[in-house]
């Protein structure tokens, strides 16, 4: 082929320019603005806002929810993925469809569905109420809401890897004398580890940032059921912009760390599947 002409060079730089402009306007400037806002009055002010009692409570609540949801999703997501990919049973196709549902349903609607079911007058709510267990406007409901919106991540990532690695390695292990449990720990789990980790990372990111579903089921009670994202919103509504910027900046820093590890995992994943 001939060397690139003058025109195509112009076109190329125009394209690159547009891409940069797009990123600057829609991503870099807002992020920059947020960090500028968070540190506008210096590090001590930032720290003071971050350590407001209600902020500390909200952030720790978010961490608690994230931790519980991540563990539950990692375990049940893996089990569900194995069932869906490896076993044929009636209703499997239906389940596969339902796994995608949380992606399609607005989180706010998800929250309302939980209120309808577990609320004081809900079908299951009445039952739990009789036992003195509060689901809605309490931690269990918030965990349920977060579980709902993050369900697909681990299931989808692990399913993909399971399909890719196939069953021959597991069969080879079985013939070599390994029982189901050993085959899972020694063969299946190492095989899906990068997919699982990727799914976990996505779950963590989404749990930290979830707002709508949790807002609806939590009732947004300060120092009781307010999470970090709600605190950001609350602080902003109360004209404490510095407070909202500070918590937002903290969440953003965590997100960047997750994004970075995500890229690393992706590379590992690719290397693992290339090393076929």
């Amino acid at each position, binding site marked *: 082929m001939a060397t690139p002409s003058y025109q195509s060079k112009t076109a190329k730089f125009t394209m690159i320019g547009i891409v940069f402009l797009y990123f600057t306007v829609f991503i870099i400037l807002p992020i920059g603005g947020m960090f500028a806002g968070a540190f506008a009055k210096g590090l001590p002010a930032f720290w003071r806002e971050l350590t407001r009692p209600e902020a500390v409570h909200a952030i720790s609540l978010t961490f608690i929810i994230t931790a519980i949801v991540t563990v539950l999703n990692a375990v049940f997501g893996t089990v569900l993925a194995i069932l869906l990919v490896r076993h044929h049973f009636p209703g499997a196709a239906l389940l596969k469809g339902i796994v995608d549902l949380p992606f399609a349903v607005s989180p706010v609607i998800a929250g309302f569905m939980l209120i309808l079911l577990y609320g004081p007058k809900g079908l299951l709510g009445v039952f739990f109420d009789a036992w003195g267990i509060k689901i809605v406007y309490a931690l269990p409901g918030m965990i349920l809401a977060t579980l709902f919106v993050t369900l697909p991540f681990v299931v989808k990532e692990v399913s993909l890897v399971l399909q890719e690695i196939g069953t021959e390695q597991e069969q080879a292990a079985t*013939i070599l004398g390994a029982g189901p449990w050993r085959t899972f720990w020694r063969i299946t789990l190492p095989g899906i580890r990068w997919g699982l980790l990727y799914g976990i990372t996505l779950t963590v990111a989404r749990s930290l940032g979830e707002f709508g579903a949790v807002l609806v089921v939590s009732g947004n009670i300060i120092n009781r059921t307010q999470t970090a994202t709600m605190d950001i919103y609350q602080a902003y509504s109360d004209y404490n912009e510095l407070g909202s910027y500070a918590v937002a900046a903290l969440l953003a820093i965590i997100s960047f760390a997750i994004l970075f590890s995500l890229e690393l995992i992706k590379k590992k994943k690719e290397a693992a599947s290339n090393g076929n």
Partner: protein
Amino acid sequence: MAIRLQNLTKKFGGQGAVDTVSFQVKQGELVGLLGPSGGGKSTILRMIAGLERPTGGDIFLNGQSVNNLPPQDRGVGMVFQHYALFKHMTVAENIAFGLEVRKSPKAAMKERVRELLALVGLEGLDNRYPHQLSGGQRQRVALARSLAPRPGILLLDEPFGAVDAKIRRELREWLRKLHDEMHMTSIFVTHDQEEALEVADRIVIINQGRVEQVGTPKEIYDHPETEFVANFVGPVNVLAAEVVEGKAQAGPLKIKAPGFQNGDRVNLVIRPGDVVLESAEEWEYGTGEVKRLVFLGDMVKADIETDSGHCLTAHLSRSNPDFDRLQAGDRVNIKVDMGRIFPRVLESGMDGWGI
């Protein structure tokens, strides 16, 4: 360990994959399951291993029914078509897996791995990962891994399918040697007739889930019991013929047809190696013309059209005086003494140089 299959049947969703298959494998024998792809060979192997549950019939290992025995307890080793090596484990870890499961002492395990690496000629590659090995090397690791727990039976599913031709030939010879040294009972699956003829003590021909014939390579090649077997193993000419005066006749070719009635429509199956061409002057046999010659190194393939319009292929070996002499367009004398006769099932009996 001896193997006996009795009326073994497998259906997948109502569709038959294996249909009342019965055969035996003696202790120490190396048997090849040969047949076209999708014919049920691998399913038979997987049922012996315990990876598939038979829909019907029985599997006996050393006289004991193993129908309800899980794969772990059958004392069987298996080499998968695509090796199925554990990707996240090193060569040594792969080989040691079956020993580790059996809780062998560490030292004995190490010694056994070393022994097997030497056996398969992969010394020094202990710490490599499967993706760092060539196809032939992976195959050897898979074999070493399956041999580690000293199985009584070794099952190999298309063991040479995924390596290139030259390595394939080496691996074949090597497998035969290995089998003889290890005193195991082995079954391997292949769709390559040359491979089966070369490696196996006995061959089981499987087609559409059924056993077509069981026999030594020579029996299979020289005395095929069905037209399918004749066609599948080795090259053949198939000529539409009719039985006249107790002989199947196709143009000038006449072969004795015991067991057939005069007037029966049959297929006459002739190996190209059994077609004798003579450039002699006496025309006591049928005559024809050489249409095309193909040089294949050790032999020449000659496509002949008889004066009666039949097409057939002859193979001339290097030792034949006509090997260098024969030319396209030559007229030749055609002599055929050996041929197999099968009832013609399909009216469109193949008739031509389909080799």
